[in-house]
């Protein structure tokens, strides 16, 4: 019998609901594993065993009395440390908020609570969600479960590390330029940045209110689909949460990919592709053929514009949120975060207004062009093998923009478009580090992405490989 902590989220939820295993047993097993692996991976900023055990006990009692409260009953999750719960510290990966305790409850947490989920603790992240590597000067870098000398990607670094390292069955992260998709792809798990407005952001730390997204990381397509289904949907507390009906993402995982059309972007996103990584991705594309999907290769428009426009919007909005703190807590920021922030002060209101106003037009043009005859767009996550932490810890040095830009090269443009993007595990490099691809879809067509990913997963089984670490 494989260890409980290696089961999928869905399998564990089924087992708990069927009383084959108790929530308490699952939580205890996970706490034991966390105790061993956390010092190696630094996925958690804080673990709360007492609270987790108490929640597990309540879950078991409720199960006995009333049955499962929802599709995540008794499932231990852990989230990027940026979601607010009254009285519970939320550091946002920062020194400035080391002692911050909010007084509101994030809608996404409320929805997970209602579905019966348990929280193990708070996960590591790039400071204020700003940074694609997972390095953090205040809490230490999160480390890849596949090789702890290597990055997890960021900014949902602890989410990637914990889910990949089997220290949580799933995790909520956030993505403004790649911060769910990068750690998911780099840590060999699924992560979805849904359509802009698909998931409520009430009660979560903001980075760029026009481009921020919240979404789950999880080990399988079905696990990820289940979590998205729980948190997605309109919210009176978040007027930007779209009142679009939520699809049955789990059911979409059963349909299969036959007849679907997948377009591969050959320009920009494939530039400088490492030959080994390119080979892994080509294997994935071959697999789509076996699944009955057709693959076409084409160039896609606007990547230069999307890079620049996204930069204007994100940095202007980030600077506005942090303006006071930058004045009063200047030295409490990591130099890298401060340096990236200062770029935002160079933009004028006119720059910003134009960047915001052209967004719907560019998005419509992109969608009409790309999805006119394709159901999904295939992009890489990283174009090179997962780097070592030491190689990317450039702080605010002269290579900062180059290194960071190379990492979020394939993910960044998608946020400005507001389209959904799902990271899918696609294998491993020779060095044993994960390789992933992104599937990007039409607005609110997350179900299509899960449909393709689940079919691919059934055929390839990458999610069954486990990291070789103690515990």
């Amino acid at each position, binding site marked *: 019998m494989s260890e409980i902590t290696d089961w999928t989220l869905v399998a564990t939820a089924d087992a708990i609901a069927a009383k084959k295993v108790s929530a308490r047993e699952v939580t205890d097993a996970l706490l034991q594993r966390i105790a061993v692996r956390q010092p190696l991976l630094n996925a958690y900023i804080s673990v709360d065993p007492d609270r987790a055990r108490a929640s597990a006990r309540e879950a078991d009692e409720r199960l006995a009395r009333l049955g499962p409260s929802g599709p995540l009953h008794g499932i231990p999750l852990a989230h990027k440390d940026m979601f607010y719960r009254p009285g519970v510290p939320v550091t946002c990966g920062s020194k400035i908020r080391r002692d911050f305790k909010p007084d509101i409850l994030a809608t996404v947490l409320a929805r997970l609570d209602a579905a019966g989920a348990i929280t193990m603790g708070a996960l590591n992240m790039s400071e204020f969600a700003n940074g694609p590597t997972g390095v953090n000067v205040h809490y230490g870098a999160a480390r890849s479960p596949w090789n702890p000398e290597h990055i997890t990607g960021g900014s949902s670094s602890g989410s990637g590390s914990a889910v990949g390292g089997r220290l949580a069955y799933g995790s909520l992260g956030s993505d403004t330029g790649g911060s769910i998709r990068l750690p998911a792809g780099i840590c060999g798990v699924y992560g979805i940045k849904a359509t802009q407005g698909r998931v409520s952001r009430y009660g979560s730390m903001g980075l760029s209110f026009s481009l921020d997204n919240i979404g789950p990381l999880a080990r399988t397509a079905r696990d990820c689909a289940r979590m998205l289904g729980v948190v997605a949907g309109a919210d009176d507390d978040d007027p930007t949460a779209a009142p679009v009906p939520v699809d049955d993402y789990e059911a979409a995982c059963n349909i299969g990919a036959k007849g679907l059309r997948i377009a591969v972007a050959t320009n920009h996103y494939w530039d400088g592709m490492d030959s080994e990584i390119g080979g892994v991705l080509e294997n994935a594309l071959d697999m789509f053929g076996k699944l009955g999907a057709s693959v076409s290769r084409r160039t896609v428009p606007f990547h230069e514009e999307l890079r620049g426009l996204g930069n204007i919007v994100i940095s202007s*909005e980030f*600077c*506005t949120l942090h303006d006071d703190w930058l004045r009063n807590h200047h030295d409490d920021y990591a130099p890298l975060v401060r340096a990236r922030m200062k770029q935002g002060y160079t933009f*004028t*209101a*006119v720059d*910003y207004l*134009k960047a915001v*106003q052209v967004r719907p037009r560019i998005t419509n043009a992109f969608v009409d062009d790309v999805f006119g005859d394709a159901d999904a767009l295939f992009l890489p996550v990283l174009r090179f093998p997962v780097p070592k932490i030491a190689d990317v810890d450039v702080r605010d040095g002269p290579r900062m923009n180059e290194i960071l830009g190379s990492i979020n090269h394939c993910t960044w443009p998608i946020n400005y478009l507001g389209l959904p993007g799902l990271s899918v595990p696609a294998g491993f490099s020779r060095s044993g580090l994960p390789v992933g691809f992104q599937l990007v879809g039409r607005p609110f067509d997350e179900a299509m992405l899960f449909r393709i990913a689940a079919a691919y997963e059934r055929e390839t089984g990458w999610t069954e490989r486990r990291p070789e670490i103690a515990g």
Partner: protein
Amino acid sequence: MHEANTSKPLWVQSASASIRMLQEGRVSARQLTEAYLARIAEIDGRIHSFHHLAEARALSAADAADREIAAGRWRSPLQGIPFGVKDNYDVAGLPATAGSRLRSGNVPTRDARLVADLEAAGAVLLGKLATWEYGTGNGGEYFDLPFPSARNPWDTSRFTGGSSTGAGASVAAGTAAFALGSDTTGSVRLPAAACGLVGVILPQGRLSGHGILPNCYSLDVPGPLTWTVEDAAVVLDVLLAPANSYRRSITRPIAGLRIGVVRGPLGRFGAPDASVEQAFEEAVRILERQGARIDDARLPMPVSDCFDVTRLIGPSESAAIHEAELRERSHEMGFALRDKLLAGSLVRAVDYIHAQRQRRLMADAIDDLVRGYDAIITYGPLHVAPRLGVEPEMTAFTVETVLTPFNLSQHPAVVQCTGYSAERLPLSWQIVANRHDEATALCVAAAYERATPWRTIRPAL
């Protein structure tokens, strides 16, 4: 055969009085339009209310209105009533220069929505009214536009208020029975105040901005300027077709209405002119005598803070809209527009975004205030109309007002005349109602107007 009342010129009376004469057959639409055209010929050389007069077109429309009336067909109460629109509105086939050299030769092919609606209602368009360049400005007057600046009919050495300058001058002087202007941070209500008129703004979206040169998408609203509250009610009835006619609503007594009187805080702006304040207090007493329940109230922030926020939002958005013109043709602009667009170009993104966030907080706080009452009363401008182009009184007049809070908060606001100063310059106040309850603001304004003689006095040009 229509007999006109020749004891006084037709332009002296309100639009509503003309409507009654038309409906009673005592005057024809043609006679009415001819009367306004004659008035224009008589005095517009001194007040410059029009940029472009469309005489033949107006007479043709008047004749068409008369033919329909003769056939028993009335499109609306405004049938046959002559009006003007600010020159930033599009009228198919007429110049739409927005007061600017940059748009000389611009002749649109489609009407602005409100123009189409009024003409479909049978109203008679006289032409395009004077405006500050692009319907905006920096608060000053520089006499550098391709048209002579409009003059205040109450004292032609003085400012009409802007940017709907011609709208203010025309309705006061009788060169139009009513006018449409546009307001971003006061440009309907300020000329209404300076020229002794009624000026109304509604929340964005109530009146269509289609076909009006945009200034600031976050704040722009169109609005009517009229001689009386009843006139404004009729115009809004025609444009909005509310379930309960405004014209009927304004006859309701105001006894029992809870009215918050807001005298401040005025922040950086200092005190109102004594004449403005005195007329304000007397007007409050008039409402009280009619049975309104008067309470003292305060804005939740100094009004100058509201102004400061509009000064970050408005010019930035204008600069974004008109970026190409600023880059390529700034040398052809008047000083005010160039100055404003340059200022907007320099605003940092962080300051603009911060201002929008502040706007939201201010709007919520102002709404909390207004929701405690049926209406609130505030000053409009704090000063009387200044001498045109003379500083610092020009800029003080346009800047030091209590108009901007309600652009930020999107509440309906009515400015009306509260009397005249010793120099016979109009005094004014502003009545603000809850969102979607402009009828109450009009009702309070009507009750006040009925109790006062101000509408019997026209400028002695």
